[in-house]
C-alpha cells in the first residue's frame, strides 16, 4: 500500500500538461521511508564529475553571450588585446555605426515586419484548418493531417529554385512582399501540425455545451475554441516569429538589394564587407547583438512557452 500511496502522490505531482512547471527537483519524491536509500547514491564521484561538466557547459554558453555583448562595446584592438576585459567606458560607436551606416536599422524594420506579419497570417490561415482537422470526422481529415505533416520534412533547398522561378514570373523577386508570402506559406505545415495535435487534446464538452445553447459552428470556433486554444496559438506564433526572424536561405536567394535585407543578410553583408574595409569586430558584434537581443528578450519573457511548444511538437 506504500506504493499505492506514492502512485497517488506522483499522480498529483506530475501535471502531464506542462512538464516545464515541474520545478527544481524539489518535487522528486514523497517524503517517505525509502528516501535515505536514494540519497546514498548521490555522493559518488561520477555524479560529481557530471555536475561539474554540466555547469561547465552552462558557463560556456553564458560566457559566450556575455562576450558578444561586451565585445559590441569595444574597439577591434581591445577585443583582441583583452577579449574578456570590461570595456573602459560604454562605447556606443559600434552600435550607432551598425544601426545607421551598415543598414541594420532598415534591416531590423524589414525583419520585424516580415516576421510579425507573416507569422500572424500563417496563424490566421492554419488555425481554422487545424480546427476542422481535429474536430470533424470525415474520411479525408486523417490523411490530410498526415499530408500536412509531410511538409515538415521538405527542406527549403528542395523548393527554393522552383519558388524563385515562380516568384520571378510574377515580379516578386527582390520584394519583401514576395518573401512575406513565401514565409507565410512555408510555415503552414508546421503550424497546422502543431495546432491539430494541440486542439485534439482539448476537451469537447465546452463546445458541446455551446452547441446545445444554439451557437453556430463558426461562433463556437471563434468564441469557444480559439480562447480555449489560446496558449497553443501563442506558442506556435512565437515559434514562427523566431524561425522567420532567423531565416537565411530563402532571404539570401530572394533579396538582392541592401535596403530590402533582413537582419541576417545585413550581418552576412557586414561580414563580407570586412574583407575590403578591414576587420571591424566591434561593429560585427554590434550587428550580432541586433540579431540576438530581440530573440533573447522574447526568450526571457516567454521561455516556458517556447520550451513547452517545442517539446509538445516532439511529444506527439
Amino acid at each position, binding site marked *: 500500500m506504500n*506504493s499505492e500511496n506514492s*502512485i497517488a502522490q506522483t*499522480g498529483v505531482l*506530475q501535471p502531464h500538461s506542462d512538464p*516545464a512547471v515541474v520545478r*527544481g*527537483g524539489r518535487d522528486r519524491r*514523497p517524503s517517505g521511508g525509502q528516501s535515505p*536509500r536514494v540519497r546514498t*547514491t*548521490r555522493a559518488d564521484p561520477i*555524479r560529481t564529475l557530471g*555536475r561539474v*561538466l*554540466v555547469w561547465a*557547459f*552552462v558557463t560556456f*554558453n*553564458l560566457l559566450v553571450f556575455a562576450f558578444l555583448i561586451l565585445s559590441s562595446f569595444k574597439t577591434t584592438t581591445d577585443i583582441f588585446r583583452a*577579449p574578456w576585459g570590461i570595456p573602459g567606458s560604454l562605447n556606443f560607436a559600434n552600435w550607432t555605426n551598425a544601426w545607421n551606416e551598415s543598414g541594420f536599422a532598415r534591416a531590423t524594420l524589414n525583419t520585424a515586419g516580415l516576421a510579425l506579419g507573416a507569422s500572424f497570417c500563417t496563424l490566421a*490561415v492554419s488555425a*481554422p*484548418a487545424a*480546427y476542422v482537422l481535429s474536430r*470533424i470526422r470525415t*474520411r*479525408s481529415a486523417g490523411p*490530410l493531417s498526415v499530408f*500536412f505533416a509531410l*511538409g515538415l*520534412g521538405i*527542406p*527549403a533547398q*528542395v523548393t*527554393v*529554385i522552383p519558388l524563385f522561378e*515562380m516568384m520571378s514570373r510574377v515580379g516578386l523577386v527582390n520584394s519583401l512582399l514576395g518573401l512575406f508570402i*513565401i514565409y*507565410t506559406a512555408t510555415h*503552414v505545415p508546421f503550424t497546422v501540425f502543431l495546432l491539430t495535435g494541440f486542439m485534439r487534446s482539448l476537451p469537447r464538452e465546452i463546445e458541446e455545451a455551446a*452547441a*446545445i445553447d444554439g451557437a453556430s*459552428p463558426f461562433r463556437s470556433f471563434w468564441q469557444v475554441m480559439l480562447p480555449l486554444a489560446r496558449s497553443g496559438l501563442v506558442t506556435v506564433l512565437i515559434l514562427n516569429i*523566431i524561425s522567420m526572424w*532567423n531565416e537565411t536561405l530563402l532571404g539570401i*536567394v530572394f533579396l538582392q538589394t541592401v535596403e530590402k535585407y533582413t537582419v541576417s543578410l545585413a*550581418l*552576412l553583408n557586414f*561580414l*563580407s*564587407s570586412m*574583407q575590403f574595409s578591414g*576587420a571591424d569586430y566591434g561593429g560585427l558584434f554590434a550587428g550580432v547583438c541586433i540579431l540576438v537581443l530581440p530573440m*533573447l528578450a522574447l*526568450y526571457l519573457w516567454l521561455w516556458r512557452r*517556447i*520550451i513547452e511548444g*517545442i517539446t509538445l511538437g516532439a*511529444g*506527439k
Partner: protein
Amino acid sequence: MTLATPPVGEPRHRRGSPRGTGAFDRSRRRLYLPFVVPALVLYLAFVIGPTLAALWISFHRWDGVSDMRWNGLDNYSALFDDPTFRTALANTLIILVVAGAAIFAISFVLTMIVREMRGRSFIRSVLFFPHIVSAIVLSIVWGFIFEHNGTVNTILSTVFGTEPIPWLNADNLFLMILIGTVWISTGLYVTIILAAVDRIPRYFYEEALLAGANAYQRLRFVTLPLSWDVISVAAIFWTISSLKIFEFIYAFGGTTNDMPPPAVWNSALFVYGESFGGRSPSYLFGYASASAILMLVLFTALIVVLRRLLRRDSIEF
C-alpha cells in the same frame, strides 16, 4: 466530395454526445472545406508544387533563363561522378550519424545528471538558448573562439604555453563544424528528453531502487523504455533538421564574401553553391535540383527505415 459522405459517417458519430449536437455536427461539416482550403492551397502552391517542380527540373538542363532541355537522368549520373557532390553527400551523412550520435549520447548523459540537480530549470534554459539564436551568430562566435589569435588559443598559450593550434585550417574545418553543431543542438535534445523523462512516475525508480538496480540498470530498464516514444520522434526530428542545416556552415570561418570551401559543404550548401551562391553563381538549376531531390529521397528512405528500427510497442503508464 467529402461533403457527400455524411450518410455513412453520421450514424457512428461520437459516443455519448448529447443528441442536440447532431445538427451542430452536420452544420459544422459545412465549415470543413472553407476552413481547410486556404491552408491547403498555400501548402500545395508553395511547398508541394515546388517539390514536384524540382523533380521535373531535375530531369533537365536549365539555367533559369534559356529554355529547359530534357536530359533524362544525366544530372543524376553526373552527380555521382562529381567529387564535390560526393563530399557534400558524405558530409551530410556524417553530420546526421556522427553529430547525431554525439548529440543523443551527450543529451542523455546530461539529462540524467540535470534532472537530479538543483536549478535544473535554469540550466535547461541556458542549454536550450542556442536553439533560438540565429545559426549565423553561433557560427561567427564559434569561428571567433577558434581563430588563430582567438579565445581558445589565447587561453592555451597563457595556461600551457602552447603554440597556437590551427583549428580552422582545411583539415580541421569540418571537424569544428561537427563539434559546433553538437554544441548548438544538444540543449534542444536535453530539453526534449528531459520532458519525456519527467513524465515517468517516480515510483518506478523507487521500485527499481528497492530491487537493487544500479544507475545503468535504471536507465536501461526504466528510463529508456518509458521515454522511447519521445526518443524515436526526436531521432526523426534530428534526421529532418540535419538535412536543413545551412547557416552554420555558410557563415563559418568567414571573412570572405564567397562560399566556404567545397570540402565542408553539405547538401543545402551544394544546392545553393550550384545555383545562386558564390561570387559568380553557376545557375545549374537542373543539376542543383537533382541533388536536392536525391537527398530528399535518401532521407525519406532513412526516416522510413529509422521508424521501423525504432518502433516498439508503446507502454502505457
